[in-house]
């Protein structure tokens, strides 16, 4: 296609039309090739992706800092406004929690003595790596985020990622100094879970909306609205019992789960190193 020359001096494109067209064909071919290689999970493409994310993560960290400052200032202002009422609520909660603490200590002592009596093999302790989210959460097609820790910090593929409220997702790609988290809501996310009271195992499947659904439930499932969903630990990748979300609707065999974690407001996450 002809491009009109103006009076200005240009630097970007070769002057010869044939070279210009050849470069266009080459770029389209290269894009298509990359796309096909992505589909086949080619390690070279995965390597290229992690190299790019490693390079761009420090830049995103810098650009995210003013946004974080504005966000934190807003949070601080809101907290300041609600400080008095929150203080009263926290005092009441403290009284309640002290009662629970006493009960928990008694149960812990009982639990330990029973475990010793039964000679139970202690579960492996998990280690946590705390990281900062530096990217946005993807567009309408992919729900993922970049964190500023990678293999150098000890992060491995498929590890669970949690915030203070519960499970947020899992590690999908790991670079040297960056890693990508696949959020629970992404359509490629499949997490083995269990309903806490109904004791029914299933898979939490993302669908690119805020409410993922439960799959592989039995036909006579007893899961009800309000049921708490936690990780089942099946597969040995995730620890058992991480809070995932709460069932918000059960209609015609479709069980929707509202995750406890609202990924859009999370700033820091912990990656859990847990293996059988």
């Amino acid at each position: 296609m002809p491009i009109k020359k103006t009076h200005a001096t240009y630097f970007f494109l070769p002057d010869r039309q044939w070279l210009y067209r050849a470069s266009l064909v080459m770029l389209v071919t290269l894009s298509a090739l990359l796309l096909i290689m992505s589909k086949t999970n080619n390690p070279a493409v995965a390597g290229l992706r992690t190299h790019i994310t490693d390079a761009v993560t420090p830049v995103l960290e810098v650009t995210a800092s003013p946004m974080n400052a504005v966000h934190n200032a807003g949070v601080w202002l809101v907290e300041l406004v609600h400080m008095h009422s929150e203080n009263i609520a926290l005092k009441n909660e403290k009284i309640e929690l002290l009662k629970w603490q006493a009960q928990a200590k008694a149960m812990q002592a009982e639990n330990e003595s029973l475990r010793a009596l039964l000679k139970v093999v202690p579960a492996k302790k998990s280690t946590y790596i705390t990281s900062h989210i530096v990217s946005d959460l993807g567009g309408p097609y992919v729900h993922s985020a970049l964190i500023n820790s990678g293999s150098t910090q000890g992060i491995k593929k498929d590890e669970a990622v949690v915030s203070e409220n519960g499970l947020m997702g899992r590690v999908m790609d790991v670079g040297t100094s960056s890693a990508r988290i696949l959020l629970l809501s992404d359509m490629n996310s499949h997490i083995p879970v269990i309903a806490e009271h109904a004791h029914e195992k299933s898979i939490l499947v993302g669908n690119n909306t805020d409410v993922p659904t439960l799959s592989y439930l039995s036909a006579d499932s007893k899961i009800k609205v309000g049921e708490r969903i936690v990780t089942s630990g099946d597969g040995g990748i995730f620890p058992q019992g991480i809070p995932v979300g709460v069932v918000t609707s059960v209609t015609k065999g479709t069980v929707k789960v509202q995750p406890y974690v609202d990924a859009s407001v999370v700033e820091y996450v912990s990656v859990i190193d847990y293996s059988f």
Partner: protein
Amino acid sequence: MIPPSRRLQLLFLALIPALITLVLTIFFLSSKHVGGLSHFMPLLPLIPVFYWGMAQARDMPYWFVFLLGLLMDAVTGLPLGLSSLLYIAFLILLHSQRKYIYKEGFVMKWAFFAALLAAPNILSCLMLWLFYAYLPALTPVLLQWLLTVCCYPVMHKGFDRVFDYILSRRWQLLHGH
């Protein structure tokens, strides 16, 4: 013969559209804490690609939008090559209609942008359907399209000023002022 210092300034002027696009892309990709808006943030990088692809086609080359697409895919987690392919297609479509739209007024350009922006969205849905055998939810896609179209006028006006500056400065440099 243009002296080297002027050549350097001309090079910088030619780089301005690409730099603006890169800055907007980095802003688009970085964490913004905008709550639920995250999943349908306006597709800011395509606005300068459209504007400069229309106003000064040679300052928005195909290889640059290819690299921009790679960056977008790598950070957002889309299949690598998808955005590159879509952005190149966007630019090819734009260039094919450029001679008809170039002299039109702002409203026509805006309408054309809105129509043209639908192309990468539809193609994205189709490609992801081929990729994952799953059609993405349409509401966020439509919201993103709408928000991007709404952002266009403000950015267009801003780019107009930058473009005027680039043209006048180029003229001064080339004519020895």
